[in-house]
């Protein structure tokens, strides 16, 4: 809603109407080249092996060779990679939202002793120069006997997203009117009931925004799954699997393109469905 009113409020255009078609033409041509690499990959995923070489930079495949997708999905193990990615991303999004909203609620709404110290420590670590922390993290995961499991990736991703998400939830919960909570308490709702039935439903926009962010981040994450599932090729995510695929196969370019598109499709799908929301959230982050 806010987006549409904002659009309506846009400032008056300048320039004559005659200039508009030229602007559109320029935007379309530049836009075409902007997404050309991806269009080329989509086309490549549908070309035959020889067609891929013949057509070079061309975008039109001669006939559609869907078998590239079958090759990638079955032959190159992308079905397993896809499942791993889905499991990791789903768990990461869920636990990030749960833990961050819980902590954000407690930090925003109660004045427990030690709260100021806690916030202070976190702010300091935020600005502290980081050492090479992936080595000690690797060590911890190893000692927890979680190395080469999907859980290690989830744990590291959730932990990495904690501070940012918790602070955003804290800020959001501060804006929620205190009266609503007090009314709930008068009606006999306890701490948990207030959180689950009153606060969380109120935070739906924030949950959606941060959920989208952590989805994109987790799905596209490359280093975490690479480092923590190195010993188990069958636990690779799409990003890692795709990257390993390029070194294994120096000839199956069309399947490689198909693999790229399989990895990309869910993100693009989410982006198309929720793009207004994503853009508004990104814009809000810099305005705030």
């Amino acid at each position, binding site marked *: 809603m806010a987006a549409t009113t904002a659009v309506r409020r846009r400032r008056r255009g300048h320039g004559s109407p005659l200039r508009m078609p030229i602007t559109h033409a320029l935007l379309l041509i530049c836009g075409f080249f902007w997404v050309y690499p991806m269009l080329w990959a989509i086309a490549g995923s549908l070309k035959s092996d020889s067609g891929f070489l013949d057509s070079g930079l061309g975008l039109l495949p001669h006939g559609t060779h869907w078998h590239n997708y079958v090759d990638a999905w079955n032959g190159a193990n992308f079905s397993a990679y896809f499942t791993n990615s889905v499991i990791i991303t789903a768990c990461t999004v869920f636990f990030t939202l749960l833990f961050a909203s819980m902590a954000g609620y407690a930090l925003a709404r109660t004045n427990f002793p030690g709260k100021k110290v806690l916030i202070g420590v976190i702010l300091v*670590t935020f600005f502290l*120069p980081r050492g090479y922390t992936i080595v000690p993290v690797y060590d911890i995961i190893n000692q927890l006997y979680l190395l080469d499991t999907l859980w290690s990736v989830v744990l590291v991703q959730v932990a990495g997203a904690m501070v940012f998400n918790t602070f955003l939830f804290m800020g959001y919960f501060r804006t929620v009117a205190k009266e609503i909570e007090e009314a709930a308490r008068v009606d006999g709702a306890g701490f948990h009931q207030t959180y689950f039935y009153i606060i969380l439903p109120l935070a739906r926009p924030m949950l959606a925004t941060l959920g989208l962010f952590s989805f994109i981040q987790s799905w596209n994450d490359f280093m975490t799954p690479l480092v923590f599932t190195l010993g188990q090729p069958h636990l690779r995510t799409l990003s890692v699997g795709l990257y390993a695929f390029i070194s294994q196969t120096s000839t199956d370019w069309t399947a490689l393109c198909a693999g790229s598109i399989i990895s990309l499709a869910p993100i693009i799908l989410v982006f198309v469905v929720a793009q207004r929301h994503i853009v508004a959230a990104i814009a809000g982050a810099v305005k705030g």
Partner: protein
Amino acid sequence: MSTQATERTSRLHRPTPTRRRRRSRWQNVKENRWSYFYIAPFVILVAVFTIYPIIASLGYTLYQWNGIGSPTAYVGLENFRKVLHDHIFWRSFGHTFLYTAVLVPVQLFLALVLALVLNNKRMRFSTFYRSVYFIPAVISPAIIAVVFQLLFSNFGQNIDSKLMSMHLMHKPVDWLGDPHVVLWVIIGIGIWNTLGYNLVYFLAGLQTIPEDLYEAATIDGAGVRQQFWHVTIPGLREIGMIILFLAILGSLQVFDLVQVLTGGGPFYASSVVNTYIYQEAFGGGFSAAGGGGGASVQPNVGFASAASFFYGLILLVITGGQALAMAYMRKRRREMNAAAIEEARL
């Protein structure tokens, strides 16, 4: 409920015997036990995976250690001395600065122009265009690496032959393998990759400028150009500083894109600070495709940690300086505004 709470806090502030105060604090803790329960996952995760690793890696800087077993060879500050004298570190440092110095102005300029065009009220399909130019920002670095490596590959009729047929160049170029070219190619891909974020930031900034200002400017007879310089630019100053800050910080920390495209290679020609530190820490052992960075090195976690801390300090100085400059400018502007209002009142 709330009156009770204020009573309690006021009682806390009143000078009371220590024993009584301690008891009331304990009561306070007990009353908030669920708050502790709610922050527990957050506290544990941050303590174990953020705070402890920072401290631990600070400890590693004092050892010569290959990352296997426990560090035993104590070397004191030797690692920091080595970083300061390591010419590949400084070369990577130079690459990172070049990357930032080229990418930030070019990308912000393009994003601003695009935002100005798309912000036009009479511009149709601006949402569509915004999506098109934003899409690269949601593509994972792994996919970018694969697609560009294929696109640049030397087979069939490719970019090289196209450019040669257009007489833009004379002989094929190894885009990701030629030491003189590779960093510029990465900068170009970097501009392409993250421009979308800055576009959206600028669009958000433009929409915060009240339309009345443009109307007033039109009534005062200001042309398009004058409106741009006297309404749009001042209106974007505040948000523009934040955009600049984020763009510089992000570019100085570039890692994924370079790691997956070249791994810093060939022969460190595209090595940036973070890929260099990564290679030092793991000896190239973790790069899935070999990457083609420099020669494979013996992992040295102590050196990597020291380099990382050293670079972290540099980043802290840069970002701190930038934040101070921003605060100073804001303060000066506020003072100037106040002075102007004062003058107008007189």
